[in-house]
């Protein structure tokens, strides 16, 4: 079917593959139709454990629809407190009134697990196989107005829709530089087969594609950060338009998309657009953000607050909006890998996945591998789609069993990917994140060392403007065969009600973790001891094994270690350790291969 133009103010002009006529006018406002309001994921709760959280200050809040768990109250100033007495996912819509009189709805989501997390399955579901939906693919040509620079943008949009599904979650996807919007059919089709609609946007304005140059040389070449912020504005314009179509009973897309479940996703520079969108995610009413081998906009000094006009600032921390960050281990393009630093700044639920052996280009259908790929294109596409589907189903469809793989260690020591996450609950107790100015102190007491050098600095490559973030990690360099870093507490800690001890770890040698063993020793106020074996050469289940499955570089990428405090402590004294009187945690390094051992890097040590 040839393109079909509409008259008047209509901006959607062509339906290349749609059977019906499209008659849409320019969106008159910059918020989605049927504004669902900003989305605030609250910190998680546990049944029977004290709970508190707070919504942004300066407004009054009133529960409108939905409910909170029994035992949790919402005060009019946005503070939540109490002790939840039931488990589950609790979603509600609030009426918000700001001091200036502005009113709007806001969505909140609170997940309450059992105190021992027994409601989380041991096994994590996979979505690597195709889902049950057949996929309808259609192209639109639309004209929208970018909210970044008010430019009128004519762009192609490829829709991937799960056949027959109404009110589907919608992902707005932005291609990377050097890629076309139709180069991701396998990946996006795989996602759609699981009941998720995807709109892939061409956007010739913001940066070059595979088959065209960019309309703006400035955005593409001179100030690429502007191109990524422009791409965010284009995605916003397209999403407004699609929801307007979905709200029009006369349109073929009527009822197709669920405005309550809008996600922005992008690859490469499109991932930079996701970062720009993250900064605006409350205004954009986003449910979640999906970064694929992305640019981090803080790479550009021009994006550091206050921002060099017309760039808007990218602050050190973004809103809590749920995020999934996928990096390619052997990325030969965005090689820094700057995307890794997003997990260090996470505020809301965040999962950082580094796919072993993956490269920048193989998630597309046509671009040849640019780096040292050690997995196939198909494998890379399926793994990326798997994570995206899991993430969207968790946040759009409330499938909280997926918390196991996204946030609770379901993928530790995974053979395919390094996974790190941040999803605090009200009981999260951070012991050391190296984020203060005093290396001799942790958050709860003193740091002691025996036969190692302990320093605090970022192990990420210092490129672009990333050092302006001031990130730091704990870097442990053993000096002897056995060495110890002790996190001491000034007073005994009560952690018996916690389920997991979590450490974000990597190491800097070129031989993975095979140079020795890593142990934890927990000591209570009565000098009772318990041990945890995190790793020994050959692999023991907590840290990635080096060199398996033909991959040779499983190092220097952070992965979380989750220690189950109920099941994994080995008693080291006659009287059992008292987890309500914990006084010290030792990280013990046993260096068997002094020639190849380098440093162990630890961050975000916490009880969950």
């Amino acid at each position, binding site marked *: 079917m040839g393109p079909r133009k509409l008259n008047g103010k209509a901006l959607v002009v062509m339906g290349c593959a749609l059977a019906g006529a499209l008659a849409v006018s320019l969106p008159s406002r910059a918020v989605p139709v049927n504004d669902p309001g900003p989305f605030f994921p609250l910190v998680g709760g546990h049944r029977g454990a004290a709970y508190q959280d707070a919504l942004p200050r300066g407004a009054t809040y009133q529960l409108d629809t939905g409910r909170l768990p029994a035992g949790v109250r919402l005060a009019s100033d946005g503070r939540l407190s109490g002790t939840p007495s039931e488990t589950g996912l609790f979603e509600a819509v609030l009426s918000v009134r700001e001091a200036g009189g502005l009113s709007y709805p806001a969505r909140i989501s609170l997940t309450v697990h059992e105190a021992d997390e027994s409601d989380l399955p041991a096994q994590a579901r996979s979505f690597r196989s195709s889902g049950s939906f057949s996929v309808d693919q259609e192209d639109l040509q639309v004209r929208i107005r970018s909210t970044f620079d008010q430019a009128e943008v004519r762009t192609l949009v490829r829709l991937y829709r799960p056949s027959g599904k109404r009110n589907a979650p919608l992902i707005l996807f932005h291609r990377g530089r*050097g890629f076309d919007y139709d180069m991701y059919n396998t990946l996006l089709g795989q996602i759609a087969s699981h009941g998720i609609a995807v709109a892939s946007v061409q956007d010739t304005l913001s940066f070059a594609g595979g088959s065209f140059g960019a309309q703006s040389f400035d955005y593409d070449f001179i100030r690429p950060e502007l191109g990524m912020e422009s791409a965010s504005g284009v995605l916003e314009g397209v999403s407004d338009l699609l929801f307007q179509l979905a709200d029009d009973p006369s349109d073929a897309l009527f009822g197709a998309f669920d405005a309550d479940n809008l996600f922005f996703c992008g690859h490469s520079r499109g991932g930079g657009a996701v970062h720009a969108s993250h900064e605006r995610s409350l205004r954009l009413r986003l449910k979640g953000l999906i970064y694929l081998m992305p640019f981090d906009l803080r790479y550009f000094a021009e994006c550091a607050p206050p921002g060099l006009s017309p760039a808007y600032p990218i602050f050190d921390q973004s809103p809590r909006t749920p995020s999934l960050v996928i990096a390619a281990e052997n990325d030969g393009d965005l090689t820094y890998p700057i995307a890794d630093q997003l997990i260090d700044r996470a505020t809301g639920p965040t999962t950082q996945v580094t796919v072993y052996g993956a490269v920048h280009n193989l998630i597309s259908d046509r671009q040849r591998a640019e780096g040292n790929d050690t997995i196939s294109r198909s494998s890379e596409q399926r793994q990326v789609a798997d994570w995206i589907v899991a993430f969207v189903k968790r946040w759009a469809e409330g499938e909280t069993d997926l918390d196991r793989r996204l946030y609770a260690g379901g993928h530790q020591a995974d053979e395919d990917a390094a996974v790190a996450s941040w999803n605090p609950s009200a009981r999260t107790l951070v012991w050391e994140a190296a984020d203060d100015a005093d290396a001799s102190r942790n958050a709860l007491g003193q740091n002691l060392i025996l036969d190692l050098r302990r*320093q605090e600095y970022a192990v990420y*490559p*210092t490129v672009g403007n990333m050092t302006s973030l001031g990130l730091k990690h704990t870097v442990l*360099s053993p000096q002897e065969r056995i060495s110890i870093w002790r996190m001491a507490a000034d007073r005994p800690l009560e952690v018996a009600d916690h389920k997991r001890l979590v450490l974000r770890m990597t190491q*800097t040698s070129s031989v993975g973790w095979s140079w020795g063993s890593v142990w934890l020793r927990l000591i209570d106020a009565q000098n009772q001891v318990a041990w945890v*074996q995190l790793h020994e050469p050959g692999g023991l289940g907590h840290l990635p094994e080096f060199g398996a499955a033909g991959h040779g570089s499983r190092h220097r990428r952070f992965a979380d270690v989750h220690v189950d405090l109920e099941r994994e402590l080995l008693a080291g004294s006659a009287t*059992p350790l008292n987890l*309500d009187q914990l006084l010290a945690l030792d990280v013990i390094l046993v260096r068997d291969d002094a020639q190849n051992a380098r440093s162990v890097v630890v961050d975000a040590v916490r009880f969950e």
Partner: protein
Amino acid sequence: MGCADDAPPPPGAGVAPVVSEALAGRAPVAPVASSAALASLQRLKLDALPLDLGSAAALGAPAARELDDSSRAIAHETPEALIEDTLAALAAGDVLALARALRGPGGALTEDDAARAELRFLAPSAQQFWGRVAEAVREGNVDWVPGETPDEAWLVAHVGGAAGSYRIRLRREGEAWVLAS
């Protein structure tokens, strides 16, 4: 210092580790790996490690070991010369010269300087990054952009692809240019 062999028995040490059936009042089933883990613990004599680190542990890190410089010279007089010599050192895999490029001409190099140079230049992703920078420099596809102050400069290497360009910040410390960290 070998911390296991000569230490006096600490409180609780010498007690043979046992698999706990009831830690802190709980009654978990220890994982299958437990017995193997306990065997490793004993083989490594970790159960003999002192509990009280106060007498043995330093509160601060021991001084970093000093290292001799590479015979390869690194010029610090101009940003351009620094980059040229850095890329040459990188091509030779000369970590000590790379450490000097980061540190500047003053003071003795240490093992920490070398470790940071390894991370910045010789990590797998870093090698890809610098390889593309070297190619851009070789082909003249670079721009030098002044920083906000005269003591700062940016090398913008036009590498193409999705990234388009890589940005490297240099700063002047006294009279010497170094790669900013």
